[in-house]
């Protein structure tokens, strides 16, 4: 090959180097071209505008609902705390002889306020509330999941389980349509809207460059179609990821401000969670999901020859992955029908109650129930007198509560989400990080039911022994320390999705090169 000729061109054009462009510089040049093209496209700005609006709405949702739920929990804590404090004081007063508990049989309103005898375990069981509070995760407001409709706290007493655990009793009051429509939290923004942004940035596919004059220009310039595809997908993915990162950062900041964590110790804990663990996992899932979508989009771009078919392909994939597959996955969930077990258990328990073995037992049960209902604030008069009735009542209620507790525990068993619905799995992963999966709440309910049983057993034992409580006993009554949701392992899913996306992208690029080579 002859050497480089000198150019006769004036104007200071740089001499040709005679060295082939290395892949990195080619990639850089392609990326710069793609960025310019994106900037010039109206669809880019339209897509970004829509995403920004949706992101703002999402951050506002985080702020509104995060504050609401935090406030509800905080108020529950305050309320129960106040009750406990007053009962603690009353107990001390009774023990020290400063306060005289009211005798139930002779009480009249003229005597003033009724003072329950907290030395009686039966009374304590009724009056002393235990707050079962589901621990809130720092990222709870980012993926609201089941939080808007499920109870995050229960007030546990020794009343029947059915009364304590009435579903929806402590859940926040919301318009029923909210459950059907959902909220636009950060998880929804990532799962539903971010792929739309990506589709908007990639929607024209490679149609322009596959045919006609532009194809000739680029081929003559030595651009391989696979390289162009990779550059286009890379830039669009980077833009989408950047937009999503900004939205995530804004949502995290909002969550921190509204969660009540903006105190010194709270900040430290929040910061630790944010920096160390959960936010990285969140971003990992989001990135993997976007990589998966990039792979899908690359496949569509290779398969579809015209702009219209590219757009239709992307739309079709979006609909399939984000709408159809989750609907099918929900239909295929193992727990379809499981949710009816609670009321079935209640009905079964009622029928058991109705099938009392003998009239005498039924009469005794009636009597104890009668005493129970008539005087719920009964102070324990001579221990031996009422103990048998109270004990029979407790035994009867144990039998009633058992099927309900079993149903709650069964309901809390984890259900795997269909592996073939990536959107469902990603959504679930987000909710797992936020501690707001349905199974998290159901697990909490089951845990509370178990505690309720343990609490009643404790009271029952004291009744059997005819114990009288003192302040020390009062303080040592069982307390609930919810385990909290186990930290989900989202890395496996994330890595799998990311790898799948990368494989699809690389495969699409290779196929693109091959098909055009064969065409040539």
């Amino acid at each position, binding site marked *: 090959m002859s050497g480089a000729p000198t150019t006769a061109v004036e104007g200071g054009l740089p001499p040709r180097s005679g060295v082939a462009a290395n892949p990195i510089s080619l990639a850089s040049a392609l990326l710069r071209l793609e960025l310019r093209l994106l900037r010039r496209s*109206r*669809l880019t700005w*339209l897509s970004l505008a*829509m995403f920004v609006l949706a992101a703002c709405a999402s951050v506002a*949702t985080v702020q509104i609902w995060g504050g*609401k739920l935090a406030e*509800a929990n905080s*108020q529950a804590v305050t309320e129960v705390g106040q009750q406990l404090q007053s009962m603690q004081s009353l107990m001390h007063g009774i023990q020290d002889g400063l306060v005289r508990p009211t005798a139930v049989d002779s*009480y009249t*309103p003229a005597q003033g306020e009724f003072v329950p005898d907290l030395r009686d375990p039966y009374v304590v069981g009724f009056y002393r509330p235990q707050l079962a509070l589901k621990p809130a995760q720092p990222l709870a407001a980012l993926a609201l*999941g*089941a939080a808007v*409709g*499920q109870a995050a706290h229960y007030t546990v007493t020794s009343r029947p389980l*059915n009364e304590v655990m*009435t*579903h*929806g*009793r*402590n859940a*926040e009051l919301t*318009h*029923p*349509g*909210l*459950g059907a*429509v959902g*909220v*636009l939290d950060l998880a*929804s923004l990532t799962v539903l*809207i971010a792929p739309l942004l990506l589709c*908007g940035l990639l929607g024209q596919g490679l149609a322009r460059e596959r045919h006609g004059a532009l194809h000739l220009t680029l081929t003559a310039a030595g651009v391989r179609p696979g390289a162009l595809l990779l550059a286009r997908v890379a830039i669009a993915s980077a833009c989408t990821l950047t937009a999503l990162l900004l939205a995530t950062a804004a949502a995290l900041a909002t969550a921190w401000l509204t969660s009540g964590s903006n105190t010194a110790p709270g900040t430290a804990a929040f910061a630790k969670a944010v920096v160390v663990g959960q936010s990285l996992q969140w971003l990992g899932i989001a990135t993997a999901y976007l990589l998966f979508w990039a792979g899908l989009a690359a496949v569509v771009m290779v398969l579809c020859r015209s*702009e219209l078919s590219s757009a239709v392909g*992307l*739309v079709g994939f979006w*609909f399939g992955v984000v*709408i159809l597959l989750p*609907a099918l996955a*929900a*239909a295929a969930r193992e727990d379809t*029908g499981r*949710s009816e077990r*609670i*009321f*079935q258990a209640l009905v079964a328990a*009622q*029928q058991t*109650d*109705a099938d009392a073995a003998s009239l005498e037992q039924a009469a005794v049960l*009636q*009597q104890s*129930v009668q005493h129970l*209902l008539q005087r*719920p*604030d009964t102070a324990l008069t001579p221990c031996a007198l009422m103990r048998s009735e109270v004990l029979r009542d407790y035994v009867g209620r144990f039998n009633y509560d058992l099927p309900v507790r079993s149903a709650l525990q069964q309901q809390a068993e984890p259900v795997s989400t269909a592996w073939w619905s990536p959107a*469902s799995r990603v*959504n679930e992963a987000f909710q797992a990080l936020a501690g*707001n999966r349905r199974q998290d*709440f*159901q697990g909490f309910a089951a845990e509370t039911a178990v505690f309720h049983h343990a609490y009643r057993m404790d009271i029952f034992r004291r009744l059997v022994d005819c114990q009288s409580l003192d302040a020390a006993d009062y303080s040592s009554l069982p307390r609930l320390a919810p385990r909290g949701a186990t930290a989900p392992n989202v890395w496996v899913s994330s890595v799998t999705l990311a790898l799948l996306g990368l494989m699809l992208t690389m495969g699409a690029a290779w196929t693109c090169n091959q098909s055009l080579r064969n065409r040539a």
Partner: protein
Amino acid sequence: MNSSWLPLVRLELKLLAAQRVTLGALLVLALALPSSLAWQNAQLLKQQSMVQAAAQRGLAAWHGQALKNAHLAAHFGSWAFRPASALQGLDPGLTHHVGVATFLEAHKRNMPTLAAVDTGQLDGSAPQLSPALLAKTVFPLLMLVIGLALGRREASRFDLDPLRVAGASARGVLVVQATLLTGLAVAVLLPLAAYAAVEVGPGPPLLLWLLACAGLQVSFAWTGLAMGRWAGARRGALLAGLLFWAAVALVLPRCTMTLAQVVEPTSRLAQNSSLKQALAKEVDGHGKSAANAAFRAGLLARYSVATEAELPVNADALLMQADELVRSRVFATQVALLRTAFDRQDRLIALLGLASPLMAYERLSMALTQTDRHALQDHDGRVEVYRQEMISRLNDDMARNTRTGDWKTAVQRELFTSLPPLPGVVAADGAVWLRMKAAWFGQLAWLVIPALSLLLLASTASSRGRL
């Protein structure tokens, strides 16, 4: 020019027949719609079987319970189950997000949050596979795409000349295309209509549901046609259409819901607090309220006796019933307040939802299938009336047949078996259609807007001497 209509129609049909992918997609959709209805009906059947079995067990438990004092029986309680509406398979609406069972007991009421008493479906995670879901998602998207492709076909100058030579006018072409799209939408719905008519019988609700569904699809199709005509060969028109759909289907409904909650907040704690305050000074059947003493004193005065033992009625039973009436009144007030808040939220949602053809359709669909909030609340109301009647009968029996302090005398079993069954589903009445005026208006508006756009485009093209 009239003679050019038939050739135009033939031309459009031929062009459509050549698009196998489009026809295939329409065919798949036409089959998917009745299939999803069949699926939903199968799920409903399963659920209702379970519910009926539970109802029978509950009834057996109620009838067969140990004979006891009437008020104790009132606490033993009974169950009420929500039956499925005839068209629930078309649109499950809110039914998947509320429970089916309500426990009827003295002094207590399931607060009408419609939060699941026995289910835990309130995570809003996944939509239910149903004809309504398909009608809101894939169907309008498909019609949008078809309309768009049709519109951009003749938007290029060079494609128009053969048609102009053939004597076609701008309006004529648009009318034919718009009619073709309407016909496609109706054709796709025919299998669903036939299947649904066989399953539930033809009737006004079904016909109106189909009309609303067809209207939605036609509005998207005409919108696509107008967009295609306007955008022409401009890139990205389809994706712009998708973004429009996503904005009105995904973003707007969720935002309006949250906004409604902010503008018209509802609070569990506030409600609990109100209830507590309202009940504080009232009679308390099981408590030691000061009002109890006044009530009892009033009874003595009414019957002109000195002690409760002399009363010809059971004062305890009357106190229970008074407590029942008080609580029912207080609860009803709170329920009314809550529903008023929900109604105000709904009005705000409807106002904002005018920007979305899908939201209007959703409201219509749920109302016509009796799966919206109002239908569920109506059922709640009927159940509550039944509960009050049941408790009233029991307390009345106790008041008349026993004396004060007597908690041992058991009722006759006939009292349990004499309670009438709960009413089933009440068919939607004319109030539904009236209530949905705004939604019908919204749907109509979303037909008129693209129609006007098409007319405008046709006029503009004609004035420029283009097709």
